[in-house]
C-alpha cells in the first residue's frame, strides 16, 4: 500500500447526497458526528462542497428527479472517490420499489463500492461498513 492510499484512507471527507430518502437515514448519519460516535477520530469530516469530497454517502431510493442530479454530482467529484449506499433504500428500494417514480436502485445509476443495509442502519453499522471497506482494499 502506497503512501497515497494510506493518506486517502486516513482522511475521508464525506459529502452527503439525499436522493429522496424518508429522512431517517440522514439523521443516523448526523448521529455519527455526535460526541458518542465522533467519526473525526478516523479523520472523517462532513464537507459542504462536492469538489472537496472523497466519499459520497447516498441515502434514499433514487427517484426520477433525483436520478439526474445524482449522476451530475458523481461526475463532479474529483476522483478517486468512494460511493456508499446507506440504508436498504439505495440498495434495493424496499417498500418503494413498486412506486411510480422509482428510478432503479443506486447501482443502476452510478457504481457503488459499499452497501450498508438497514432501515435505517445504526451509526455503529455505518462506521463498521466503511471501516470494513477500508481494511479490505
Amino acid at each position, binding site marked *: 500500500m502506497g503512501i497515497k492510499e494510506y*493518506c*486517502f484512507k*486516513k482522511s475521508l471527507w464525506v459529502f452527503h447526497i439525499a436522493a429522496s430518502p424518508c429522512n431517517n437515514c440522514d439523521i443516523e448519519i448526523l448521529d455519527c458526528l455526535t*460526541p458518542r460516535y*465522533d467519526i*473525526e*477520530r478516523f479523520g472523517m469530516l462532513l464537507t*459542504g462542497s462536492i*469538489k*472537496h469530497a472523497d466519499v459520497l454517502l447516498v441515502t434514499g431510493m433514487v427517484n426520477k428527479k433525483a436520478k439526474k442530479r445524482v449522476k451530475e454530482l458523481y461526475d463532479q467529484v474529483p476522483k478517486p472517490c468512494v460511493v456508499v449506499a446507506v440504508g436498504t433504500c439505495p440498495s434495493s428500494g424496499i417498500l418503494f420499489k413498486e412506486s411510480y417514480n422509482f428510478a432503479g436502485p443506486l447501482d443502476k445509476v452510478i457504481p457503488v463500492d459499499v452497501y450498508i443495509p438497514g432501515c435505517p442502519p445504526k451509526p455503529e453499522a455505518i462506521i463498521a461498513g466503511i471501516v470494513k471497506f477500508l481494511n479490505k482494499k
Partner: protein
Amino acid sequence: MIKTIIHFLVFPGFLFLSVAGGFVSWFDRKITARVHFRKGPPLLQPFYDFIKLLAKETLIPKNSSPGLFLLAPVISFTATILAGILIILPAFGIESGFQGDLIVIIYLLMIPAISLIFGALASGNPLSSLGASREIKLLISYELPFLLTLLALVIRTDMSIKIQEIISEQKLFGPFIGSFSGALGFIVMMMCVQAKLALVPFDLAEAETEIVAGAYTEYSGTPLALFKITRYMLFFIMPSFVVILFLGGFDFKGWNIILSIGKVLLIALLITLVRNTNPRVKIKAAMKFFLVWMNLFAILSVILAVLKY
C-alpha cells in the same frame, strides 16, 4: 545564495513553517473536539489531509478563467512563506538585516486574503463570489485597527519599524502586554488575528453552513492543498507574530524553550476558545465591530502609547 534558499525551503521557510503550522492546527482541532466532548483527530491528521489532497484530481470549472484560478493559491502560498521567514528569523535572533521589515510583513500578510478573493472571483461560481465579496468587506474593516495597534507599538519603540528592535525593547523594559496601551492593543490584535485566520466568529468568507465552502467552493486537488497548507502556516505565523509583538518574543536558552512554545500554544488556545464559544456574526455586525469598537480601542491604545502608558 545557498543560505537564502535554505531559509526559504527548510528553516524557517516551507518545511519548518508547515510542520509547526500542522501541529498548531492539529492542536486547534483537538481542543475543539475536547470542547465538544469528542475525542478528536490523530496527531498526523493535517499531514494526511495535505497528502490526500495532493493525490486527488484537480478540476477546473467550465466558466472560470483558469490562469488566475490556478495562480491564486500559488501566490498566497509564496507570500505566506515570505511573511513567515521575515517574522520568524528575527524571533530566532538571526539578523534578517533591513530596516522596515514590519511594513513588508504587513503587506505580505494581506496577500493571502487578496489572492483568495482573486481565486474565488476567477472560479465563476456565484457562492464563491459571495464569499469573495464578504472577504473584501472584512479586509477593509479589520486592516485599519490592525495597522493602528502596530502604530502604537512603533510609537512605544521610539518610531522604529524593525521587528528586531521591537523585540529588544521588550527584552529591556518587559513585554508590551504589561502596559495599558499594550493590553488594549493585544485585545484588538487578537480580534484581527481571528479575522485574518478566517475563524468563527469572522469566518464569513467560507461559512460552510450557509454558502457551501464560500471562496473555496470550486477548488479541488492540488490548489486546495496549497490553500490548506497556507492556512496551516498562517495558524503558526499569526500566533508567533502576536507573541513577538506583545509577549516579549522567544528565548531559546535552557528551559525557556518550553516557555516560548507555551506562549505560542497559549495564543492558539485563546483563538480556539474564542472560535468555539461564539456564533458566526453577520457581515454588517462584523464591519461595525471592527470599524467602530476595535478602531476606538486601537486609537485609545495609540493615545496611551503617545502618553507613554
